[in-house]
């Protein structure tokens, strides 16, 4: 019985968590998800948009050095730029930044400090995506570990973890994120063995990861509660395998499907949370750009320089929408009955 899950990484029929019955027995969840995405035009367009945004963000230094010829932190308050042969102030005497020029320099305009918005948008994308990736990884890993321990051992480990998750669940995510963000923004995080500077991107990444753990841990716990009663787990126990080995070799491969379903949805939420926290000053610390801080920068000049808010807002919306659309396709393929994302999951 142990070999059944070990060979394919997918539990036998009836053993899959969260009703992943739609997955063909021969396909790994990963392949099934990829196939579903390939078959969906919506998902493929979303993947294209996402890849474009990722590629553009990673190309930020190239754009900055060779096209815009300025860095993301460089102020140009008193500089001028040539437009149609005329020298135009990057920031007007009354403080209004230039709008999109659709040329190399200030392609999307400038912010209030005369910084090139396109450059900051691209660097901001790197920061936002970095945070999203780290948060998602942290959240999925810790959530999976906690959910597995709680579901597998039950008893007091389950009681402690579940109550802790209940507390997290009952706390408004944004408020908790703001509280943690503001508390650590100045002095950073110092836990003795872990020290993170207040302006480090790791800090908002971990904060967002922490506040989202509950969305992963609870559905994983539910899946494991079901899995631990399955015959192949009982068989493993009968063979004398220890708990760690059973969790690693019998349970873990069977929650991969759930993690694949949760992944895109969690990362979409992470991008949105990062933007929200940074917008409120509790996420990415200035002058580091992120889509949230860029939107915040534009709110004071919404009428005269709407591009400052609109452009990062559109990129943020496109990213979150793409991730959600991909997530929907993956969920429909791997979790058609919505068991992973129902009730406890992030899709509620």
């Amino acid at each position, binding site marked *: 019985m142990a070999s059944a899950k070990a060979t394919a990484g997918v539990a036998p029929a009836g053993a899959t968590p969260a009703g992943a019955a739609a997955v063909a027995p021969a396909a790994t969840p990963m392949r099934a998800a990829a196939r579903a995405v390939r078959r969906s035009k919506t998902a493929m367009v979303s993947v294209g948009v996402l890849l474009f945004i990722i590629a553009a963000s990673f190309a930020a230094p190239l754009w900055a050095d060779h096209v815009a010829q300025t860095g993301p*932190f460089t102020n140009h308050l008193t500089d001028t730029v040539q437009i149609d042969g005329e020298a135009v102030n990057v920031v007007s005497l009354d403080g209004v930044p230039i709008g999109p020029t659709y040329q190399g320099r200030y392609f999307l305009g400038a912010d209030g400090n005369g910084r090139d918005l396109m450059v900051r948008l691209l660097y901001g994308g790197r920061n936002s995506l970095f945070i999203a990736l780290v948060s998602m990884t942290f959240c999925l890993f810790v959530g999976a570990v906690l959910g597995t321990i709680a579901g597998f051992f039950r008893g007091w480990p389950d009681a402690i973890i579940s109550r802790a998750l209940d507390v997290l669940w009952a706390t408004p995510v944004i408020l908790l994120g703001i509280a943690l963000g503001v508390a650590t923004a100045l002095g950073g995080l110092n836990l003795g063995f872990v020290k993170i500077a207040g302006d480090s991107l790791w800090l908002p990444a971990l904060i967002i990861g922490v506040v989202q753990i509950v969305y992963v841990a609870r559905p994983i716990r539910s899946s494991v509660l079901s899995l631990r009663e399955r015959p192949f787990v009982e068989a493993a126990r009968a063979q004398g395998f220890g708990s760690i080995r059973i969790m690693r070799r019998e349970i873990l491969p069977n929650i991969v499907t759930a993690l694949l379903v949760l992944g895109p949805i969690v990362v979409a939420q992470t991008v949105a949370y990062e933007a929200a926290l940074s917008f409120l*000053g509790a996420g990415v610390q200035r*002058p580091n750009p992120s889509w949230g801080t860029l939107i915040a920068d534009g709110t004071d000049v919404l009428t005269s320089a709407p591009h400052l808010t609109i452009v990062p807002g559109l990129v943020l919306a496109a990213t979150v929408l793409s991730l959600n659309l991909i997530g929907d396709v993956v969920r429909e393929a791997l979790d058609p009955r919505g068991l992973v994302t129902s009730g406890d999951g992030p899709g509620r």
Partner: protein
Amino acid sequence: MTRSRITTALVALSATAVLAAGCGDDKDTGGGSEGGSATAEVKSGGTFTAYYTSFPDYMDPALSYTQEGWTALWTVYTPLLTYKHAEGAEGATLVPGLAEAMPEISDDGLTYKLKLRSGLKYSDGSAVKANDFEHSIKRVLNLESGGSAFYSVIEGAEKYQSDGKEDADISGITADDATGDITIKLAKKDGSFNFYLAMNFAGLVKGDTPFTNTTDKPAVGVGPFKLEGVQPGRGFKLVKNENFTPLPDTPEAKADQIDVTVAKNARRQAQDVIANKVDFLQDPPPADQLRELRTSYTDRYKEYVTNSTYYYFLNVDVPPFDDVKVRQAVAYAVDERALARVFGGLLAPSCNFLPPGMAGFEKVDPCPWGDPNAAPDIEKAKALIKEAGAEGESVTVFGNDEDPSTPVAEYMSDLLNQIGLTAKPRIVEGSTYFQTIGNQKTKAQIGFANWFQDYPAPSNFLFLVDGASIQPTNNQNFGNVNDPEINSLIKTANENPDIEAAAADYAAVDRKLVENPYVLPYGNRKLTKITSERVAFDGLLWHPVYAADLTTLGLK
């Protein structure tokens, strides 16, 4: 002296239309007035509406320490001394308020004698008594008001405060209700004491006014208006005081009533005043509506340079700014024109620490670090950093999250990187910013700082750079400036009750601050006056201490 640090939106500021000497740039935007009283014809009567962005901290003269509070309460609670209801330098002139004349000061500068005018009445019709002055000061001390430090110089005031007994006597104040004589003895000389007597804190309230915050049920006072309908957080009404007999320099109110409403959204405020839905705005409109107002509403929009100073502090106790060459390098590199743009044009570039229009202001001209209205010398700055051996040294530039502090700190951070240092900004939450940089343990190297006057005298600015005011916490001398020569000049000047006579000393301090340089002043903030079409715009005075003079708000 400890008191509330002043920030743009919330803390006590006194704005001013300033002398022409420092306001050349204002002409384009209708800036600084030459001073003088209202000459425009203003009709009396009518009910007006006004927007405040924030409700005043308190509607109690003993406690209020915000611009919002001061603007309103000045018209309700007149002190023994007050200011002329006029613009510019004339408005900064001290005149008798409820006192018959300016105080007689003894030769040793320790005793002040005043006499209360006869026949004065509070807004409820009851008579004003000389002993009400002592009660008013007791409330300031007993309630531990932010203004209590001003009156601790009175003999016995510190004991009264430490004993904590409401009914105890302040030994330095004696008053005779029968004659109206009031005598104040100081524990030490203080040349600014007349200004303290003119502050809102010393506005007279009745002798039975409780020793509690009276915001919910405001105390009666003597002034052109009385307070009614106070709804904390929402608004209040200034209603014409029918029991007020105009004083020689305090006329009666033009308006019958002013309804003040708190409206948080600055954009909505501007739209409403443009559309004549509201008559007056207390706070400046958002930056992106300034251009429209400046070009299309010149008949009801005007900017005024305030008695304020915006500067970067440089901590002379902490590397690399303990090296004068590094400080000079930064001074050469700062571009005041760039900072004016950060302020949306609401900044008048300056090289002085003292604001123009202030006694002791002598324009440092030429500015040793280059013309504030011209491009900076970045190459010279780089050379000085190299000469000082400070290349690559780490610097944290402090700023807070309130506009315009954040972009100001980010600008400086970028600038320091340009000249060879390794800088990054650190943005601290606004409500804790000044405590953070005022704590010596923070070792803040450089950062945003500003100050708006509490009263129009240099002493109110120069304590920010006085070695005697350095403290381990709540330090207002953020750069730990402690130059013996400057300290001595400040001490001598502050003890002189004749500010004009002390002006030369103040000017010398200002020059030394700039030349060393211990601080990097870059300008004076402008504020705005904007009204609806029906308001007699030119008649509404912009007072140097209290911003809009609401007693002059009237119809065309």
